């Protein structure tokens, strides 16, 4: 927060800021607006700028039809978070504090892994899952979705755990704690912020995933909400209020994350991308 430019006409800037934000968020507003619009007003020209005759029929349709999808997405999201943290936190600790030979190479591989397009991973997974009979399974999607988050998570944990003072770990060692215990009772509790950051991203990415869902889970009994919306558009492009209501509901995790943990998101983006 060093760059404090002179702040003369501050309210004037706030006004511009509000205007810019409004322009940027117009599509989000429009989604909400349409979700409350009555069917018969949907094709009105010009469209209603406000849901003047608001209806909840869209949301009623969500409750009727989309709840199972939302449940599946929740399970997949939480499973992905658990798997990601379980794999990445110990790895981050090792890379940050124990610094094995070859750690640099591993870091390199992790960075490169993030550059592989999802569609390629999807095709490889499809070939493997087909042979294993793991297509259309929730577990399969959890594993596939975790590939979106694991390399990023290791990098975040490494960066964060590098900041834990070595004296603390040394003290634990002097007191007779083994590596496992040091990790579990000292490093992990101190890395709470990193755990939160990683979990947020892992959850959001798994929740939003469309590529893996559509390639590995098409036609399955338990599908995530992204497919729910996708099929909904395909089968039914009349009821846009219901489609947009589903979209609003599917956006709730993102909204929650933003309200509850905005600073973790910003930190995650920048740590994942560049040094300060």
């Amino acid at each position: 927060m060093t760059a404090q430019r002179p702040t003369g006409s501050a309210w004037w800037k706030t006004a511009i800021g509000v205007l810019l934000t409004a322009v940027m968020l117009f599509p989000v507003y429009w989604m909400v607006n349409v979700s409350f619009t009555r069917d018969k007003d949907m094709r009105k020209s010009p469209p209603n700028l406000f849901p003047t005759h608001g209806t909840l029929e869209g949301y009623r349709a969500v409750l009727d039809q989309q709840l199972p999808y939302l449940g599946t997405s929740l399970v997949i999201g939480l499973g992905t978070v658990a798997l990601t943290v379980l794999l990445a936190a110990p790895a981050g600790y090792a890379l940050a504090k124990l610094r094995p030979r070859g750690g640099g190479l591993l870091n390199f591989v992790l960075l490169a892994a993030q550059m592989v397009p999802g569609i390629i991973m999807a095709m490889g997974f499809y070939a493997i899952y087909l042979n294993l009979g793991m297509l259309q399974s929730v577990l399969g999607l959890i594993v596939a979705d975790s590939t979106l988050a694991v390399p990023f998570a290791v990098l975040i944990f490494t960066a964060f755990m590098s900041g834990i003072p070595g004296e603390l770990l040394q003290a634990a060692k002097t007191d007779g704690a083994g590596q496992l215990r040091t990790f579990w009772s000292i490093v992990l509790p101190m890395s709470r912020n990193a755990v939160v950051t990683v979990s947020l991203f892992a959850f959001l990415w798994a929740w939003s995933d469309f590529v893996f869902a559509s390639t590995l889970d098409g036609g399955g009994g338990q599908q995530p909400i992204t497919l729910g919306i996708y099929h909904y558009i395909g089968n039914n492009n009349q009821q846009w209020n219901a489609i947009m209501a589903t979209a609003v509901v599917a956006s709730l995790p993102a909204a929650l994350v933003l309200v509850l943990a905005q600073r973790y998101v910003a930190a995650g983006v920048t740590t994942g991308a560049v040094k300060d």
Partner: protein
Amino acid sequence: MNDTTQLPVGPRPVRDRRGAATAAPPQPPPAARRRPRSEQWAAWGFLTPVIIYLVVFYAYPLYRNIDLSLRNYTVRSFVQGDAPFTGLANYQKVLDDPTFVPALLHTVVFTTVSLVFQYSIGLALAVFFIRHFPLSATLRALFLVPWLLPLIVSGSTWSWMLNSDSGVVNAALHAVGIGQVDWLTSPAWSLASVTVANIWIGVPFNLVVLYSGLQSIPESLYEAASLDGAGAWQRFRHVTFPLLRPVSAITLLLGLIYTLKVFDIIWIMTKGGPNDSSTTLATWSYHLGFGSLLPAFGPGAAVGNLLVLTALGFGLIYIRLQRRQDSA
């Protein structure tokens, strides 16, 4: 066994700058401590799960993908595993395909235009928001929304906004006397439409990263420039922009790698159509592999592998840049 030579080359902590791990010196300092053998063993113990994971869930799918691209696969031979080896025939087929050149061109246009706008809008917003004014932090946080939304949500919202008959965009154009534009259903506009949506999604990322870059420019430089009589534009041109160059380079490169693989938004909005007018390499690969009743897994994988090669090429540049910055 000198531990400081194998420092993580990855991103550095934002919140914490102490400790050797954040400064990757090209040469090990003389006083480097040796790590005891037991710590090495422990380290590998902690790393084993992730290494197995990387081999099974990254290396193996990638290997399967290469294998796929070198054989003549059908759904049946998938299960039986007896697809004949055809060498580079799939690649040849893909390069000869009439879709290849347009798809490549669309990829280049989509990526370049997205990057230019995402970066310049992101930078302008970052410069604007770095000044502190009431609500600035809250508004900046709100700008993250487009980036956090599931792509299926953004995609369908944009689809409806751009709908020819009932979309709000055409309604607005109508109000200023411009006739109906078929944003998603005419070949002339489909690529532009998906690009606009993609720019919208990418601005927040650029804003956040460039904002954090701006924060690290010392205020004293601006004061000095002001004393020398530099106006706002001159301060931007001669202080902000040059000092932001390393961050800009990395932002653009990461943006490039991300944009190359953009698939969801295009698929959701136009499926690459009409008539392949918004097909990129990523959507083409998906279309070949999964998009039709007669899947062409081999050629799909071949297109995908071309994409991987491109992305990894830029990825290597990114890693080099990152490393150079870390040791600077």
